[in-house]
């Protein structure tokens, strides 16, 4: 783990507004994204975040105990 479990949870939660706002931005740039596509894209972003967090820390540092 690169971050603590609580840290990961918070990071996921902070992704939510980013995903919601991203849809508005993308649509204004001329790409019509549906709700389902946004949800799928959001799930992928969160999946990537989780994968990143689960991967062992290459620099070998332990996240803080909290």
């Amino acid at each position, binding site marked *: 783990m690169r971050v*603590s479990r609580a840290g990961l949870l918070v990071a996921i939660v902070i992704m*939510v507004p980013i995903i919601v*706002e991203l*849809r508005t931005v993308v*649509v204004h740039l001329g790409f019509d994204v549906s709700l389902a596509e946004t949800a799928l894209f959001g799930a992928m972003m969160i999946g990537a975040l989780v994968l990143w967090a689960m991967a062992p820390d290459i620099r070998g540092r332990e996240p*803080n105990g*909290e």
Partner: protein
Amino acid sequence: MSTESGTFLDQFPAEAKVVRTAFYSSFVALFVGALMGILQVLHRTDVLRIVDSADYYSLLTLHAVLLVLSFSVFFLVGIFTWAVTTSLDRGLQDLRYTWAWYGLMALGTLLAGIAVLGAFIPGLDMSAAVLYTFYAPLQAHPFYYLGLALFIVGTWLAGLDWFRSWWAWKKDNPDERIPLPTFMALTTTLFWILSSAGVAVSVLAFLLPWSLGIIDQVNALLTRTLFWYFGHAVVYFWLMPAYLLWYTMLPKISGGKLFSDPLARVVFVLFLILSTPTGIHHQYLDPGIAEGFKFIAMVNTMFLLLPSLLTAFTVVASMEHGARQRGGSGLFGWLRALPWRDPVFTGMALAGLMFAAAGFSGMINAGMNINYLVHNTWWVVGHFHLTVGTAVALTFMAATYWFLPQLTGKAIWSKSLGLVQVLVWFVGMTFMSNSMHRQGLIGVPRRTAEPQYSGFDYEVAVGSMAELNMQVIIGGTLLFISTLLFLTVVVMTVIGDKVDGLPDNGYADTLSGPEDAPLVLDNLKLWAGIAALLVILAYSLPLAAIITRGGILGPGGSPSPQFVDTLLFVGRVAADTVGGVIA
């Protein structure tokens, strides 16, 4: 810092009881308020309409009054009482006096609540569906105005209580700097009294007599202007205790110290002098107030961004300091070392984050020209659910997880549930507020039981109206669930057993302490004088114009030029006096 260690309950059992009672009162208000909130969401989106649409406005009045007056203010008088007692390390002067102001506030809430709920009792000729802004010609039962007046007087007496503590302390410690938390409570009290005097005049001199039938009519623009004279400062009354917690608790919980005590003092002084002469920015669309006065209010408002930006800087710097103390490193890597598992920390940090977002929509509200686009739409509701509804409310809920053990001697029932609670609030508010903003941009009105119109469709920019409504429903439901989780943790904690080994009462040390702050910052008389002067500059002419044109008691009444002359004369004398004191 306290000489005796232990929890606040160990140090000051009697004061702890006051703070506890204030908190419990605020939680009751939160519960009822949140219940109204979810009912409003379901009503507006036409999912469930349990009351007649005509009665929607009673629910909405109750929601706002209970949340922005009772919930916020009961909680913040608790915080300030704790802050003053802890930082001066002395009990309050006279607890009977303290309970008296608490009693007034409680009685006021009760009266106002009865007036609103009276609408649901058949046969009873009582209602107060006037919303929390109570614009005339909407009229409420006298209990409503009386309740608000008692409540506000209660808060003034509370402020005086903190001043009495400080005066007594100053006698014993003539050469010491005012401790930072006390400084924050006192500066807030000063602008609160200055600003709420306006709404007190509006209620006691005009609206209450009018509702009692003693006078026939009021000058609607005058009472509105007096309301907003208080209506912007009140948002800082809610926000300053949240700032107090961000400045004095967040650094400690992050494992570090407050970056700068002097900067914190500057911020509170700026709020003291700038909070009130900005209220006209809520009236950009009111006819009858000249553009020039609105422009002055806009400029003052933009100046108010400064202390908020200073706060963002100081608080984040303190958090980074804490994280590095805990072994964090790297440009952003330190973020990982913060205590994310602690709901006190995470709740406050997320509240701060949402406040930053609110700052952006706030700038749009504040700009005279773009305000016309969003005025009275749901955008505004989206905005203040981020400010008072999250930056303040979520900070208070998070702080409860620290305060409750201090006040009861009991450990938090489940900190993990507390963490889930603050996260659910954040997600819920993201959905609800984002959709409210977007609906506002396409013209969906606020304060409307049925914002559906036949033969008319909103031109939604992104997605569809159904999606936007669904987003509000999901968000509102999550917020309601979060409130229930919060109250569950509170109740389970309170009915639990006392434990030993709780953390000591206290607040953050500083990296740069009061010795680095210029002495003049502690000169409360000076700052109060400047605040009063700015208020006179910003308000005497608009008020005089409103009275000259509309008459003190409204159209057809006497224009009362004599009164206006007196007002201007008194204003000029006051300005000269203040000027003389400062010079």
